[in-house]
């Protein structure tokens, strides 16, 4: 039986007060200044900083939304460029909501949905992602039969054949990029070390659809949401945990409307922190490292998950936790947000390199983060810049501190 899965849709014009009220105060361009010690790092809007015209900042895009609303302007290639070079990092909303209670990022998300509905979005370069999703249930071209290969050799239960309390959802990036296999195995292994009853869907796991939602294709996203929700509700699990920040985002924000209310959804960093607090994990091995923690946008600004990963890193012996000048709610996007990297790889890489520069400025030896897309972007930046900076997933560092190897 067919069933509506997500809640009734929000459409752009419902946020008209936001874009009509926007007063162009321009605080959306930067960071919360009281918490930024260096003027070099005050700007925080990747697209505005790169393309300079006001239309690329949130204030300009809000004005474009207003212009579209009253048919003052019509969609053009440049409007498409402006909309799809936004990394949807929410830095603008972080600033604006605090003082003005407007929702610029939400406006841009709904502008993308409008663009897709009207046929002028996303970018042509994004077509391959949707095609791959149709063919492989994964936007990155990975073979669907091999989706569960990352877990080979781990003592994870196989759902739904077996039952488990925790569903470990690996996500699109971790299951398609061999370079990330180490990190996702580490995340699962940490949970096993804590004695949790964890299972995966293996090759039966399908995309969470988040990338399509990011690009504005809500219909396509909902088809994945519908199937996943039905699967998750039928598994009898008490918790879904994922190392994929984008999956965590849609599970918490979109799926939760129809997901069995008894199922908790957590990002691994939240669960790691809880397990440490309960004493189920005991990091005893020193990890001598001077590291900065990078807050993924979809974890930090979207869900205020700033403390859990820091609690994890603080529990690791020998690790000196440093902070970016743009930290927590001031964090700069890694360049991997908004699906930008698939259409504008140079610009995405330049943003990642800016973040890498910032990490080097602190004197850190390593960047630690807890998002596969951030890890990919930083690895690219390190290679392109010839930097000696190391890049780790949070789970990898935690597993090392437990004295275990993948």
């Amino acid at each position, binding site marked *: 039986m067919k069933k509506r899965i997500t809640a009734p849709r929000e459409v752009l014009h419902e946020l008209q*007060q936001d874009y009509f*009220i926007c*007063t*162009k*105060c*321009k*605080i959306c*361009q*930067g960071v*919360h*200044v*009281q*918490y*930024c*010690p*260096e*003027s070099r790092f*005050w700007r925080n809007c990747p697209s505005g900083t790169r393309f*300079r*015209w*006001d*239309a690329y*900042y949130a*204030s*300009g895009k809000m*004005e*474009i939304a*207003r*212009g579209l609303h*009253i*048919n*003052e*302007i*019509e969609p*053009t290639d*440049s*409007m498409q460029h*402006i909309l799809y070079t936004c990394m949807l990092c929410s830095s603008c909303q972080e600033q604006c909501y*605090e*003082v*003005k*209670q407007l929702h610029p990022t939400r406006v841009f998300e709904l502008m993308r949905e409008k663009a897709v509905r009207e046929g002028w979005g996303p970018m042509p370069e994004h077509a391959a992602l949707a095609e791959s999703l149709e063919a492989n249930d994964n936007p990155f071209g990975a073979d669907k039969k091999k989706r569960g290969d990352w877990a080979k050799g781990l003592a994870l239960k196989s759902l739904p054949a077996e039952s488990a309390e925790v569903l470990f959802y690996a996500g699109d990036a971790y299951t398609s990029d061999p370079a990330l296999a180490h990190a996702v195995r580490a995340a699962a292994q940490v949970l096993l070390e804590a004695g949790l009853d964890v299972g995966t869907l293996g090759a039966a796991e399908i995309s969470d659809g988040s990338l399509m939602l990011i690009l504005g294709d809500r219909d396509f996203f909902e088809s994945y949401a519908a199937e996943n929700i039905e699967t998750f509700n039928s598994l009898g699990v008490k918790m879904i945990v994922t190392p994929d920040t984008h999956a965590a985002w849609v599970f918490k924000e979109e799926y939760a409307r129809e997901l069995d209310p008894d199922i908790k959804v957590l990002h691994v960093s939240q669960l790691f922190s809880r397990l440490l607090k309960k004493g189920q994990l005991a990091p005893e091995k020193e990890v001598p490292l001077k590291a900065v923690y990078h807050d993924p946008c979809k974890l930090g600004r979207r869900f205020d998950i700033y403390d859990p990963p820091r609690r994890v890193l603080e529990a690791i012996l020998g690790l000196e936790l440093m902070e970016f000048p743009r930290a927590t*709610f001031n964090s700069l996007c890694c360049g991997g947000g908004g699906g930008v990297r698939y259409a504008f790889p140079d610009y995405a890489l330049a943003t990642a390199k800016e973040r890498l520069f910032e990490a080097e400025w602190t004197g850190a030896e390593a960047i630690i983060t807890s998002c596969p897309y951030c890890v990919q972007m930083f690895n690219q930046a390190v290679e392109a810049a010839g930097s000696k900076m190391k890049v780790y997933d949070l789970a990898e560092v935690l597993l090392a501190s437990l004295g275990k190897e993948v």
Partner: protein
Amino acid sequence: MWTKDIAKDIKERRISGIIFQHEAEPLHNKPEDVARAKEMLAEALGEAWVTDDPVILIGYSRDQGPLPSQYPHLVVMPETTEDVAEVYRIANECKVDVIPMGTGLNTMGLHIPMYGGIIMDLRRMDKVLEVDGENCYMVVQPGVNYLVAQVEAQKVKCRVLNPSTAATAGVISNHAFCNINTLASKYGFGIDNIVDMTMVMPDGTILKTGPAAYGAVKAHVPGPGPDMASLFRYAFGQLGTVTEMTLRIYPEAEHIYSIFPAYEKDDLECVIDVLYKVANENLTLELAHMQNSFFGIFVGENNKQASALAGSFPRNNLFSIFAGTSMEEAMLKAEIFQKVILDIDPEWEFLPAEAMEDLVGDLRSVNLERWQKFFNVTVRVMRVRGSFLIGALIGHLDNFLEAERKMRVETSDQAGHTDDNLPPDDASTYLQPYHMGRSAYMEYDLYSNQGDKDDNMRMFMTYMRAMMAGILGEGLLLACGAIPLNKGMALPLPEGMPSLDDLLSLVMPNAAAFMDTMVAFKMAVDPNNIAARRWDYETGLCKKLSI
């Protein structure tokens, strides 16, 4: 498909999309001239920095003021003083208007292209060129905002005079306009703290003022010799564009201590006595007076919270910070300050610093430890209620009482009254003592609910009435409000009705005569009237208020 026709029908209901022809028979900004200017500008600045794409232009079409959107014809981004000169040279040749824009935080239409033309976005010129902590000055470009300036000044243990606006406000435009700041009773406004300027005149000539003019060593004070910088105060781009400014910075206090005096009585006379005495004795580093609704709207996250907070705050509040080479010294000054206040009226109370921390501690935009350095937010721009503000420089603090009384008559029971703690007809004042209390800046704020068009309109009409009352008050010089007068009112004025210029001549004859001189100056330096054109030389309508 009939559904497709609906969308088409809706679009066709519009008479036009973007209005690119702003005048019936334009002498400036003719399509063929704009096209020629675009080509020449692209050659001069590079194609990447010149655009006429409507999707880019729309970002420059509105600000927080009440004006409807007005598109420029072109936007350009120069990088150097020479680039700016080139823009003016081409604009003169093609007769296209030029409106400079600093960092883009704007009030009341100052960079909105009323007749179209070129918006000159100066945000590529965003460097702090020099900071000298020993001689206490800083050289900045127009794209530098107060955040950047402040952080750079702090590196040499100094601070800039940052106004109570968002940290993204531009330093040059704000200093050249006025820059009302909480240190004004000690150090004056920003406008008093300009050492020299490099500017491009409307004909493309590069002019240096102050020490920069004759290659003298820069220092904390301007001079020696004559200084033309004052001529360009409050010019809003009508006399050219400042591309470099040397401004004074001040040593950061080693220790600071804050207290928050509060006075429940609605007795402004007593408040004035206190402010005058305190400013005159030079006790505080920072000093300002704010009324309750100011705080309510500053801190409250929504209208309901703002009302509740306005109700819980005393009617009158002083913002006072004391500095010393030791904490004891700063606290001693605060103690003397308290005595002075209590001598005037023992009913003054003092809110503990912790109470303020409880109130705003959860807000990321407020950091009490650095409050004195950063006003990241401004009440009138940011909160759920916007405001129509009337700013006025007061000849003497006492004059404030008369001005405020007259303005309040025009507000109370005129804009609608409710039982709310923030009724529409209640205005809030902000008073900034200046030069040890010899004069002051007054802000008279009317708050409207930004989501309510009717409320906005009601407030706008009230604002107009109160502003006129302010102009007519003795000892007042209007500091802002001219732009909505120019464009917000229906023009041309009906036949027989005195123009605003005529009105100014009647109420402020001396100022009107001075403005005649400024008008002549403007016409001399900008013969083609291309620099931020707000009036035509031929009609002269509203020219004085525009200047």
